[in-house]
């Protein structure tokens, strides 16, 4: 389906809508949307709660080109119901990943999927079907990777990548994250509700970012690339990752990741807060990580073995 896209006015990934992100990420005029808004594939559940629907159910899927390479792309709209996975929303992503799995071998077919995650996780109004959707997406993602497709998560939106979105990011071949981006499974409010504010104070924003934010995820190796909060910066990072080679998805890769995770737990498991980890890693600017400019931070991250061994 042909689709006119509005470019972002500010160029900020965080501020942009999902459609603006696609517009700036891909080569101009190359995006072709599958099951776009005119198809009106809306949630069958939201009307039962008298809640507004979105014509694309909060996710845009399609194909396009990144510096001439054919890619598939999915972008969640974090401002529509927190970018949550409903039944239709999830089915669109499953379909895209299965398409990648089944067609990547043809000469002109896309060999990479870009997942623009911006989600709080499952849409609670859709409960079990949302949970099932996340399970199906994980299976489809794993199958696509096993078939040789590169799946790259781009995280820097308002909702971050939480719940099933955090699990999906961890299943990807590579993750690009910005300072504003956050990934985790249980969100700060969820932890506080279940364990108390003494365990995790969700109103303490610096704590939230020190724990789940982009800089921490990058230094620990949970994200393989760090981008400034600019759409062009995410584009450059995604391109560099595709050019740099994608790890094979096999038993040896998983065994190495498991060993690195065990080692991380042993080295840093007793730390109470992220700066303690930076001190143990002997980072020169351990106390100032949060204040570093993007370029300075990137240099430090690129020099750290821990940050580049790609264990989630």
């Amino acid at each position, binding site marked *: 389906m*042909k*689709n*006119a*896209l*509005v470019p972002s006015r500010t160029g900020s990934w965080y501020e942009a*809508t999902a*459609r603006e992100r696609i517009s700036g990420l891909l080569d*101009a*005029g*190359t*995006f*072709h949307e599958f099951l*776009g*808004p*005119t198809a009106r594939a809306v949630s069958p559940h939201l*009307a039962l709660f*008298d*809640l*507004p*629907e*979105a*014509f*694309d159910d*909060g996710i845009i899927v399609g194909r396009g080109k990144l510096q001439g390479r054919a890619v598939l792309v999915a972008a969640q*709209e974090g*401002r*529509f*119901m927190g970018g949550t996975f409903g039944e239709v929303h999830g089915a669109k992503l499953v379909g895209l990943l299965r398409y990648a799995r089944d067609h990547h071998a043809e000469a002109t077919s896309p060999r990479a999927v870009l997942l623009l995650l911006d989600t709080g996780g499952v849409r609670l109004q859709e409960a079990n079907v949302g949970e099932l959707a996340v399970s199906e997406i994980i299976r489809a993602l794993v199958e696509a990777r096993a078939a040789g497709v590169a799946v790259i998560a781009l995280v820097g939106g308002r909702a971050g990548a939480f719940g099933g979105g955090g699990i999906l990011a961890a299943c990807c071949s590579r993750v690009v994250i910005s300072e504003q981006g956050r990934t985790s499974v249980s969100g700060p409010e969820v932890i506080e509700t279940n364990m108390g504010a003494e365990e995790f104070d969700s109103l303490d924003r610096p704590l939230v970012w020190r724990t789940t934010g982009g800089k921490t995820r990058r230094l620990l190796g949970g994200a393989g690339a760090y981008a400034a909060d600019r759409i062009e910066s995410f584009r450059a990072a995604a391109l560099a990752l595709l050019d740099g080679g994608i790890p094979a998805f096999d038993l040896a890769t998983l065994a190495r990741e498991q060993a690195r995770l065990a080692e991380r737990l042993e080295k840093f498991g007793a730390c109470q807060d992220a700066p303690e980890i930076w001190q143990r890693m002997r980072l020169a600017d351990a106390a100032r990580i949060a204040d570093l400019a993007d370029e300075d931070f990137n240099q430090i991250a690129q020099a750290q073995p821990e940050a580049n061994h790609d264990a989630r």
Partner: protein
Amino acid sequence: METLFIQRDAAQRAPGKSPHALVGVVASGNLEVLLERVLDGVRCEVHVKTPAAGFGEVWRAVIEDFIERHAPGGLRISINDCGARPDTVSLRLAQGVRLMTMEASE
């Protein structure tokens, strides 16, 4: 959810060649507007779904003003509202008509 349907003849056909366009997001105080060039002549249809009940007169005034100012003949316009104020609605409708004049990408 309240649904409204407003239909008017515009002064002329909407400019541009884009077959459809979407602007806005279904988020608090915002709305999404889907425009489709599917009607004959200068007719314009606007379908609204809104969670804020009882504002039919305001919607009618905003949409009639829009049709008069922008001449969106031939367009079927579908709105998913999420409690947007009238000025936001006017802005999105104007953005939508402008987007319909932009080059569609393949």
